[in-house]
């Protein structure tokens, strides 16, 4: 059987490059759907308990730093822009620009993680980590009125806070790793205008992780905040 000339990235069980690209793209979208269902379970638990224990959740939320959360939101949104620009660079065949944007994305991701780490440390210092060291005496500041809350319910808020942001951070770490690998491969010239599917699909992953944060931020940080 003759072996026709084709892009070395084309795998043999595919009929042609377009089929391979379409398959990879559909595969990534499906994987993202599974991620949405995965986080969905935690969002569901959060919804149920926030409705049941609003005051305690608001009190817990008021202990989070809006400044840090907003900073992280901005960082992630910018990183999504750099991802888009990386894809465009790949499409245009501009290797160095591509690598540059990939590296910047990783740096922004690590900035996010660093800020998160700082926030977690702050929680540790204030004894807001759920478990045997947990202590919560704060109240829910309802427009000046201080409403005491059940510390156990506040602990539930923080349990969900750590579970949700922790799971999100894990996905960020995986994303940073993924993009680092892609940056190295891009530097070595693996991608061209004829084949940059992994950049596109990794970009989709990054956008989803970003979107999940965009839901997490208001839900966790912005309960009953007044000027």
């Amino acid at each position: 059987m003759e072996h026709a000339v084709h892009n070395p990235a084309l795998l043999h069980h595919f009929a042609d490059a377009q089929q391979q690209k379409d398959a990879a793209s559909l595969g990534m979208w499906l994987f993202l759907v599974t991620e949405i269902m995965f986080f969905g379970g935690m969002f569901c638990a959060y919804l149920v308990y926030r409705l049941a224990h609003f005051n305690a959740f608001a009190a817990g939320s008021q202990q989070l730093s809006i400044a840090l959360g907003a900073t992280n939101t901005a960082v992630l949104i910018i990183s999504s822009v750099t991802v888009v620009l990386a894809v465009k660079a790949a499409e245009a065949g501009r290797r160095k620009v591509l690598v540059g944007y990939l590296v910047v994305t990783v740096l922004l991701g690590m900035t996010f993680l660093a800020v998160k780490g700082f926030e977690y440390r702050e929680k540790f210092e204030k004894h807001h980590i759920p478990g045997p060291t947990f202590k919560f005496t704060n109240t829910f500041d309802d427009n000046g009125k201080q409403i005491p809350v059940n510390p156990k319910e506040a602990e539930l808020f923080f349990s969900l806070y750590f579970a949700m942001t922790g799971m999100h951070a894990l996905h960020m770490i995986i994303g940073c790793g993924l993009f680092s690998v892609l940056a190295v491969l891009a530097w070595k010239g693996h991608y061209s205008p004829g084949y940059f599917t992994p950049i596109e699909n990794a970009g989709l992953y990054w956008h989803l992780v970003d979107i999940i944060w965009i839901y997490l931020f208001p839900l966790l940080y912005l309960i009953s905040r007044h000027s």
Partner: protein
Amino acid sequence: MASRVIPANQAPKLNYLNNGHSLRSWLLTTDHKRIAILYLISVTTFFFFGGFFAMLIRLELLTPQGDLMQADTYNKVFTMHGMIMVFFFLIPVVPAVLGNFLVPLMIGAKDLAFPRINLLSWYLYIIGGILMTHVMLSGGVDTGWTFYSPFSTEYTNTKIVEAGLAVFIAGFSSIFTGLNFIVTIHRMRAPGLTWSRLPLFVWANYATSLIMVLGTPVIAITIVLVAVERLFHLGIFDPRLGGDPLLFQHLFWFYSHPAVYIMILPSMGVISELIGCFSRKRIFGYKFVALSSIAIAVLGFLVWAHHMFVAGISLYAAMIFSFLTFFIGVPSAVKVFNWTATLYKGSITYATPMLYAFGFIGLFTIGGLTGLFLATLGIDVHVHDTYFVVAHFHYVMVGGVLMGYLGGMHFWWPKISGRMYPEGWAKLSALLIFAGFNLTFFPQFILGYVGMPRRYWQYPPEFQVLNVLSTAGASVLAVGYLLPMIYFLWSLRYGPIAEANPWHAAGLEWKTTSPPPTFNFDETPVVTWEAYNYDEIPDKELEAPVAR
């Protein structure tokens, strides 16, 4: 069908089985057919583990007292039986063995869309399986396969986190298989193979894959939350800490109900293939059967709280879920009616696969109808958590899924192995399984209505006769299951060599050799015909194979 013995002077053709003999060529394969064989071996192993625990259960239940083992041991035995059978046998078996082998062949493709992810799926299954085996050998878990909180999060002393991790990992095996199938079916069909020309087995696996992809992540996160609660004493499901044990049940059943459709849909797909071939007819109402698979997949996500009618949910929620549950009965019934109608004016033969198909129709009808009993609120209050439920789900899972799987294994065995199984022994096994199955599980319907709860190590003496009948049936069933293991293995060496299409069946998988070459087809087929074109396939030589 008659099989030809290949003359000794013809060298065996290169096929996927003899294309490389090293361990490496098997353990690092990306060939979907070899991966299917890897799954076949591992899934069968777990079936035996699960079956071993079933045997222990039935032996203990011969007498009303708990005298074979201690209560704690019995609780672990039924839990391990359930966890292994559900997560390591029923959910993967038909998609990972028959689906993996056949879907690319049936659509004229060289492989699945992501062969390396396919291999990864198998390794994830094995890692999950090894963890579960370790749990089994180091004392087991005792929560029931449903691991309700707060017992599983605060009270049990067994290895919940490890068992949860095993299921979590195996769950990703399931997700990746489903993802692979969906992309393959969408993007890799041969030229001319439109959706309306697809075999119903492919439609069935497609619908199953939708559920795998959408539902499995929810049990994954539920397991994470249980593990987190158990390890760090957080209060997610514990009422003393502000949590809600019912939230666990909602999250658990949101996956575990659709999971049962993951189990049955592919088997239903097999039945469509068998009935078509052994009636020499296109399935009656093809379009409706195809769409009913999708309907079951969608509706399956709307009914989970029918497992919770007496759990403490509101009266009105219970009514809504009961009402929705009846809707699922319709597409399932539609399939049974269409299969029956296909027999009309067919040309029917009784090879073993067809016997399994007949058995499936009978047992699934009973299993499905008893599901309606459970959907009926007034009845469910009485029979929930009794042996009535146990009987119901064994009718659909064993009488349904397993019969479909065995029918499919017999049907496609010549394609998979290149050999024919011995027909006489196969027919005997099918009959033993059918008889043994009914004797095991029909008495359990009665036991349930008279009030014997499930998961009981000891029971009041008046329930003994029914339990003894059930155990007697189980021993017949066990023999029925052992025989195919033996004769399938025997056939690998001594079975008559099979030709490319021994059943003269429709379908692209029969247009290549038995066994197929590694890349499935010498040339990609171009499809210009409808599925089940039995009017165009000559059916002489259609006697049942002679056992040698």
